[in-house]
């Protein structure tokens, strides 16, 4: 097992480097001189030349990449052009909010998804299955940002039960786990949970159905095992794949939160990305994407290892 973990980590190194390269190149596929982004509109020629040297834009690309990577490894992702603060601290504060949102959404989405999926798998081709499958397919087909708007219309505009935007009373204060703050979390979390709910339902339904139609389940029942025992076997066999899918979904929630955070003005990494894009704050854009992607790679790695440790079929040599 230890060898397996070590090997997974070794395999992750080239991926991490490639991700860094893609993030680095992002700034260089931007139309025009990357300098434009950091230059005040009325800058003189001298200032432009000065800044060019300061940012290293005058050096060959591989050298720039090396320097950038060297700094990044040491936690220096540069400073935000808009605020002048270090990118890393901005990103970390925003990511914390996104994690809060994603974790709550994951709890909702995975619980519902597992429930619908198992029920639909057990009662395949009955009306229960049809309802669960419809919910699942609606979940994955919904434009989630629109669902967010609709929820705001119903619960904030019409019923006035929940706040529409923000992450707490009085603007962006410290996050607390009390109702005053939680009420701000309800709508974005439900919105975020819809896609993972649909995907987990689909996956678990297929898994449960497949396992139940296998010969060994017949054999278990023939042996006179209770349905509770049979259920335990189903869970054991479905767990590795279900876990992998849920891990991936958690990653998507963390990385793909920009649309929902924009709808609800949730001060997470997505909203940060949004403002970075529209203020052409390239260091911030680059840094946010890098941190989110690395997070995603790390999460995938953890899922792989967790999956291997509970699935005897994956060789751990």
């Amino acid at each position, binding site marked *: 097992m230890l*060898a397996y973990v*070590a090997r997974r980590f070794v395999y992750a190194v080239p991926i991490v480097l490639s991700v860094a390269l893609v993030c680095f190149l992002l700034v260089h596929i931007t139309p025009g001189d990357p300098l434009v982004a950091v230059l005040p509109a009325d800058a003189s020629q001298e200032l432009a030349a000065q800044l060019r040297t300061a940012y290293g834009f005058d050096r060959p690309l591989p050298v720039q990449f090396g320097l950038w990577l060297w700094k990044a490894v040491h936690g220096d992702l540069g400073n935000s052009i808009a605020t002048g603060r270090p990118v890393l601290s901005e990103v970390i504060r925003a990511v914390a909010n996104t994690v809060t949102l994603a974790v709550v959404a994951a709890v909702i989405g995975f619980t519902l998804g597992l429930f619908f999926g198992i029920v639909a798998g057990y009662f395949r081709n009955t009306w229960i299955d049809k309802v669960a499958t419809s919910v699942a397919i609606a979940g994955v087909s919904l434009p989630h940002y629109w669902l967010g708007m609709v929820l705001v219309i119903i619960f904030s505009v019409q019923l006035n039960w929940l706040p529409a935007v923000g992450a707490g009373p009085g603007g962006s204060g410290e996050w607390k786990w009390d109702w005053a703050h939680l009420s701000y979390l309800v709508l974005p979390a439900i919105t975020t949970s819809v896609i993972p709910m649909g995907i987990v339902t689909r996956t678990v339904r297929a898994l449960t159905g497949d396992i139940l139609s296998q010969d060994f389940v017949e054999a278990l029942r023939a042996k006179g095992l209770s349905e509770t025992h049979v259920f335990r076997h189903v869970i054991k066999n479905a767990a590795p794949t279900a876990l992998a899918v849920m891990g991936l979904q958690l990653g998507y929630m963390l990385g793909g939160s920009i649309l929902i955070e924009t709808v609800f003005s949730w001060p997470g990494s997505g909203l940060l990305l949004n403002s970075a894009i529209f203020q052409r704050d390239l260091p911030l854009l680059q840094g946010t994407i890098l941190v989110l992607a690395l997070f995603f790679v790390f999460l995938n790695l953890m899922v792989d290892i967790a999956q291997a440790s509970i699935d005897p079929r994956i060789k751990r*040599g």
Partner: protein
Amino acid sequence: MSEATLPKAMLERIEDFGGAAQPLLKVVGLTKHFPVRGGLLSKARTVRAVDNVSFEIAKGETVGIVGESGCGKSTTARLLMHLMTRDAGEILYDGMQVGRALSLRELRRGMQMVFQDSYASLNPRLTIEESIAFGPKVHGMDDAPARKLARELLDKVGLRPETFANRYPHEISGGQRQRVNIARALALSPRLVILDEAVSALDKSVEAQVLNLLADLKSEFGLTYLFISHDLNVVRYISDRVLVMYLGEVVELGPVDQVWDAPAHPYTRALLAAMPAADPDNRTETPPITGDPPNPIDPPPGCRFHTRCASAEPMCSAASPTLTDLDGAGHQAACYMAIPGSGHSRASAAEKAA
């Protein structure tokens, strides 16, 4: 040999070069080792699928290859067809070296193969006619004559073209599919056809029909067969000469009657004894051979059969015996017991210096 009944529009055959004395296929030292990937720390190992195999096939002859599954029969077939690259060895077609005197493309026309799985060897998206016509079209025939040829060949293999030509593989039976595969092989006017377990998956009654068809086609088209099978009865029925393979090596070869009547290698004896006898009084109660073949990954040193051989002696695990001629009539075996003067206690005394 009624040449007149052959389809007129067939591709031209590869010309007969060396005459009757030249073997149609000569294989020397054919070797294929598959690397098996080790773990992060364990070193890589190899499967010796085919190890130094040599034999000849004369023109018009049928040569059988028998052996347990995993002995390298099918790998040999794929190596001969150049579907796989070999690690060592030479393959001469009518005296011509492939890639030099004979291009690979020409060899394809001279040598064809019928696979075991009749369904997997036909493209499910093509009609039967299209599957048969594909080969000739690759070699420059136009679509219309290629389809015409396909229909004539369907007739030759006993399938009414008007019923079968436009069907898809899943719409016909296994025996019919294997007839289609034979027609597909014949469409390139080959002189040598390799039949890799071509009848093994068929029902016994269908198998007999297909074997008879093969015999008819052989005389009609003047073919030479390499017939690979694990079924000894079938091999005896159809073959002139036979090769017995064990773990990638040829352990015995010779005219089929001599090998059957006087098997020289204990493995051949065991295989023959394992055949269910037709006469219930003749049935043996004790299994002549026990255990599975050893793992072909890193096979045992010396004679590969010594781990399962009742007469194994220390010399057998020390060095492997080479194929040795037994009677001057082409019967050869690789066993110290059969080699006079080899030093094995059951070998006959040396007649000439060993």
